[in-house]
């Protein structure tokens, strides 16, 4: 079976396979380049960037949970100018799409980021993080209300011609309302989920493990929630969905695709096995071949056909 079978194009981002790496779990790409040729990936999403550099939260920043982990990194990043000077040169030499994940304290920050990054030749898209649970200002707060979500996406839209991907928070009552708001404000695609808000308590110190009390849960523990939300968003909007949350195997990836994801991202899975994205790509190739599928696009959302709920194509 030729590689075309798993080729996918999401709002103009052409990927030779639908497997990306999730923001914040892959640095700026170089950390994993010692393990395999990262040009084999479908796309890379950078660590979340802010206009000014951010030091991040004091340790501890991570805590293991059953089949998952909590993180409170706090968006540590070098700031957009340093990114352009030090990271973009090597990223721009990759043969695969590179997507910049952006975050801001204010709506204006997002706009400024969008404008600044749009000047980079070769950048594939902007993923707008309105879902970070680990910062004082902005972040998740924008993604918890349809109006503010729309305001941020609109500000980014006005600052760029690049495809705009809205990255949603699962910490909401109706993910569909947020997705609809983001799309009507101009989002070309939706990615989800960011981490689920959680916490841990140190029973010896009798206080929360993290300085900010709450932290973001990721990994296999969140997969069923992520899958359900991808399913819901697929039914609510017409733009492509990028699914993530607990994907560690190709079988997980197939589930997300059948639920409605046009592409998937591996996050925490990289930590268990640096080669996980590559194994997932191989698994998808074998699966599509075994299923007699000529184009992986045929599989996207196809599980919806077996439920009483109407597919968006009906």
């Amino acid at each position, binding site marked *: 079976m030729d590689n075309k079978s798993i080729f996918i194009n999401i709002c103009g981002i052409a990927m030779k396979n639908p497997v990306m790496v999730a923001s914040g779990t*892959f640095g700026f790409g170089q*950390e994993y380049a010692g393990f395999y040729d990262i040009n084999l990936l479908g796309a890379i999403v950078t660590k979340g960037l802010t206009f000014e550099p951010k030091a991040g939260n004091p340790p501890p*920043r*991570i805590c293991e949970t059953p089949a998952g982990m909590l*993180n409170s990194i706090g968006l540590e990043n070098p700031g957009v100018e340093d990114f352009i000077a030090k990271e973009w040169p090597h990223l721009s030499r990759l043969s695969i799409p590179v997507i910049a994940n952006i975050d801001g304290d204010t709506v204006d920050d997002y706009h400024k980021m969008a404008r600044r990054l749009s000047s980079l030749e070769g950048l594939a898209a902007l993923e707008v993080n309105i879902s970070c649970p680990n910062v004082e200002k902005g972040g998740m707060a924008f993604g918890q209300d349809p109006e503010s979500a729309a305001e941020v996406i609109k500000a980014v839209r006005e600052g760029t011609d690049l495809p705009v991907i809205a990255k949603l928070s699962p910490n909401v009552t109706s993910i569909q309302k947020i997705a609809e708001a983001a799309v009507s404000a101009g989002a070309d695609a939706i990615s989800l989920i960011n981490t689920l808000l959680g916490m841990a308590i140190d029973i010896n110190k009798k206080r929360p493990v993290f300085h900010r009390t709450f932290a973001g849960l990721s990994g296999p523990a969140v997969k069923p929630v992520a899958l359900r939300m991808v399913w819901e968003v697929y039914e609510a909007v017409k733009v492509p969905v990028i699914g993530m949350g607990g994907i560690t195997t190709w079988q997980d990836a197939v589930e997300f695709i059948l639920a409605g994801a046009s592409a998937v991202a591996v996050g925490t899975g990289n930590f268990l096995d640096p080669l996980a994205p590559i194994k997932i790509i191989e698994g998808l190739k074998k699966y599509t071949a075994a299923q007699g599928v000529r184009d992986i696009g045929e599989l996207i959302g196809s599980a919806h056909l077996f439920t009483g709920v109407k597919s968006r194509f009906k």
Partner: protein
Amino acid sequence: MSLFCGHAKIKDNIEIAPGIYHMVLNCPEVAEDAAPGQFIHIRCTDALSPLLRRPISIAMADKKEGTVEVIYRVVGQGTRLLAGKKKGQMLDIMGPLGHGFPIPPWVKHPVIVGGGIGTAPLLFLAESIREHKLSSAGSPELSGCEDIMKTGNSCGKPAKEFIGTVFVGFLTEKEIFGAELLKDCGFKVEICTDDGSRGYKGFPTDLLEMYLNDGPSPSSGKVSPAIDIIYACGPSPLLSKVASMASRAKIPAYVSLEERMACGVGACLGCAVKSADGGYMKICKDGPVFEVSQVTDL
């Protein structure tokens, strides 16, 4: 740069002291590139809990044999799973990771300070210092220390030269490991235990302090050169004492730090330690070994 990520065969996994295990892995790829102070990142189970890998320091690496050895203490789920692994089974590891202990060419009198399980990476360090010193002294052939657990002449011929001084502390006599290897590497080894069951009753930093104040004990006969570098690994109170003594004495000192890790390669920014010039460094990538002046909050 190529990093190993795959399965290594377990050649041995034995309990050398209550709750402390010595594992020998067959992994030429890691053995070839390993430097003292670096670590391997171990997946303790194929299941999803415990989810994350566990970082364990390389206690010895033998390029010729293609083996990598670790010494670990059972403290929780992950290390308990490791302890249950049998000879002949495969272990999922990645590495060698991180930046280890530098061994500058000018070193005349290195001092190694170890506490408990923290002594593990210092064994590889001691052997590497010995190799460096002897090879720069023009010694023709050098055999590595074959087995870190053998007592007696594990290095074949013990080095006659004085290589350096070691202060190691353990909870109690039963937990002592590595002392013979350190001696065979040409180090003068001063042991202490918290309960006084062997050697000096107290902490290795007490001995270091006395040494720095009084100089080498006259009983040793000849006077060794002044201490020009200090290396330490152990619990954080030990590291902070070493750091303050070293900076008072104006001796460069390198310590190996610990923090919870996820990726182990610098990608997740999870293992942060405050840097002296603001911001955070990553223990897995910028360390785990740091010069004490690089980090604050020691």
